[in-house]
């Protein structure tokens, strides 16, 4: 391993001739990138940083052996699920190494939240993981209620569980569609969006907004159920199983789909635990961990449900896991509707909350795994520290472990099966 000289400075590439560029680059420990035509392409090729590598990992990914090249996927690429950039090192079509580059959607939400009052924090966390908005609000609501020492009334807790399960269903449904879309199937994603639309209409009739619902409050929820919500819920409940079956018929038994996903991107239970992967991805690897069961929050200890697991750990198991969880969520919704008590939906909470100094932790099972919030109060009107653990970020860590040795085409298929949402990854 050659020593990297940290003092070396590389001037603006425009001022240099090519030989000089190559010499400096070699001094920096980087193999020159060559174009298909054999010409030296310069530093800006695939966005290799214009400086000596800062870490061993950076040096490893940007150093090319004979016959290898770097392909830059994203941030503007049709299927990187938002704005992610993947630097893929390939030999022919076979992936040698893969390096996700994050931060293209970073909005500094944690810092924003630390400058907002506790009530308004719940509006800032909405656009993080934009496919599980309700879960995003649920975790801070739990944390702040612990911090302030207030409990949401029972009916509010039931409504929370109801909307959260509805959100889980459409999020999992979209994952199935995107998985097919990334393999070239055009139709399932549109069916998934039609199914999502029904649920979103329902949730907008209870919360007043279509995408970023902003429905949770510290100590309850914003609105009680109304007639429109309930009638939409009933209509949807009547045909949801048929819709799922239609999607399943189109994807689950499709020979091409199976050939592309079975034994593809296999994550063992041990690996998944080691990486910190949670949620459906972990359960698809055979580890029965579900926050709803392990650390029951809200009303989940009053409801009857099982922790479903799959044994495969491959993309197909992750897909089957989502279908199983959709069915289980429907089962939960049935129970919630049966048991829902009467009463108020909002506890008595002042407009500006000033909790006593302390710290609180709230964790929920989001469609992508363990989503949790850690808040520290210094007695002021806004959190002193507000930290979020987003499951997509952790799931994405598995990608460089799963891909080497596979083909370029599998990158998207495996990534879609891990179901990351870049809004959550970058915060």
């Amino acid at each position, binding site marked *: 391993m050659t020593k990297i000289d940290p003092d070396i400075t590389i001037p603006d590439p425009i001022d240099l001739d090519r030989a000089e560029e190559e010499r400096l680059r070699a001094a920096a420990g980087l193999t020159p990138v060559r174009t298909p035509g054999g010409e030296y392409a310069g530093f800006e090729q695939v966005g290799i940083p214009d400086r000596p590598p800062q870490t061993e990992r950076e040096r490893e990914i940007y150093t090319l052996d004979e016959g290898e*090249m770097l392909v830059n996927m994203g941030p503007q690429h049709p299927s990187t699920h938002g704005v992610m950039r993947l630097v893929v090192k390939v030999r022919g079509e076979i992936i040698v190494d893969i390096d996700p580059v994050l931060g293209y959607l970073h909005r500094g939400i944690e810092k924003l939240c630390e400058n907002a009052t506790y009530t308004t924090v719940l509006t800032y966390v909405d656009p993080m993981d934009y496919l599980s908005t309700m879960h995003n609000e649920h975790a801070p609501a739990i944390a702040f209620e612990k911090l302030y020492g207030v409990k949401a009334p029972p009916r509010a807790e039931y409504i929370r569980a109801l909307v959260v399960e509805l959100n889980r269903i459409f999020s999992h449904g979209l994952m199935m569609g995107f998985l097919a879309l990334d393999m*070239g199937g055009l139709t399932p994603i549109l069916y998934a969006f039609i199914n999502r639309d029904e649920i979103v209409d329902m949730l907008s009739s209870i919360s007043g907004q279509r995408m970023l619902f902003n429905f949770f409050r510290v100590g309850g929820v914003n609105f009680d159920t109304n007639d429109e919500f309930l009638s939409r819920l009933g209509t949807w409940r009547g045909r949801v199983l048929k819709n799922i079956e239609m999607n399943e018929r189109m994807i689950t038994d499709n020979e091409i789909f199976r050939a*592309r996903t079975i034994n593809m991107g296999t994550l063992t239970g041990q690996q998944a635990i080691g990486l910190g992967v949670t949620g459906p991805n972990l359960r698809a690897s055979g580890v029965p961990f579900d926050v709803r069961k392990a650390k029951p929050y809200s009303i989940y200890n009053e409801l009857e449900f099982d922790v479903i697991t799959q044994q495969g750990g491959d993309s197909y198991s992750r897909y089957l896991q989502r279908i199983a969880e959709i069915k289980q969520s429907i089962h939960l919704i049935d129970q919630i509707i049966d048991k829902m008590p009467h009463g108020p939906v909002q506890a008595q909470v002042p407009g500006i909350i000033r909790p006593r100094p302390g710290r609180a932790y709230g964790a929920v099972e989001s469609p992508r795994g363990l989503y949790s919030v850690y808040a520290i109060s210094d007695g002021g009107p806004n959190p002193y520290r507000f930290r979020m653990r987003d499951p997509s970020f952790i799931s994405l860590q598995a990608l460089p472990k799963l891909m080497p040795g596979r083909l370029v085409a599998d990158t998207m298929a495996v990534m879609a099966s891990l179901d990351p949402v870049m809004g959550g990854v970058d915060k």
Partner: protein
Amino acid sequence: MDWELLLGIGRFVLATTLLLLLTVPTAFIIIQMEMKIIAQMNLRFGPNRIGPRGIFQSTIHGFKVLAKEDTVPDQADRSTFTLAPWMVYMAAAMSMLVIPFAPGAVAADFNIGIVYFFAVLGLSVVGLLVAGWASYNKYSLLGGLRSAAQMVSYEIPLTLSIVGAVVLAGTLNFSELIGWQLENGWLLIWQPIGLGIFYISSLAEVNRTPFDMVEADSELVAGPFTEYSGMRFGFFFFAEYVALFIMSGILVALFFGGWLAPWPFPAQLTGFAGTLYGIFWFFLKTYIFVAIAVWLRATLPRVRVDQLMGMAWKVLLPLALVNLFVTAIAVVVFDVKGV
């Protein structure tokens, strides 16, 4: 002056001009079908603004492509970059020469039509490879190399699958092949395995779903076409849809009786009326297969490049050889007419 020769040249020029003109509405119709049929299958409306029920949408797209700025990447190999769309388009247009539209309506009815067809249509891959190489783009390069790998794999079963039919009919001329089918029934009955292999390989030949990994929009953005814009991109696009039409037409000519009606051809229909009748049936059958290809696109995901190659080499090629072997033995043993 040899008037025969002049007449022949004049007829050829007229026929090629007509065929080149035919590619335009063909591409427009298939693009329109693709937009509208897939939309219906996706439970969408599809284009519905331009013209009644949006039927002029693809035409407008064509004009839009004409009006777009034509860019060449800075470091691209300009001459080959410019040449590539022309090669792909000409491969498709030239192979149209031998398509048997109707009795008497074949541009060049020569005796090795089938060989000519596969030789010329295979040239389009060269254009894709050149486009991938000249674009100075890694997605294009991967797409171009994929198309080369794909060609090596499927072109052999594609060609072998029809040798059985050729052996049976004893001709390489499309019109004579259809004449044989008139007497003995469509080759669909005689060569079902050949038909299956041909259909799968022909989808790969024209880069249709589920074998569209050359352009694979979710992986390679647009494959070899990534850097193209304006009318150069339009030519690729046109060539792709024209190739789909041609492949469906050849499928119909080889296995589904070409211009023949499903029932016995009326004897009184000769001359111009017979030609029109034949054209009607040919286009009807061809567009049915085009519609099936569009349907497949709406339904199926894409296979991986190694899966296609594995299938071509391990399944289709042995099957095609077995099919040819059995056909050849049967022709000798049962002394089929035409040998």
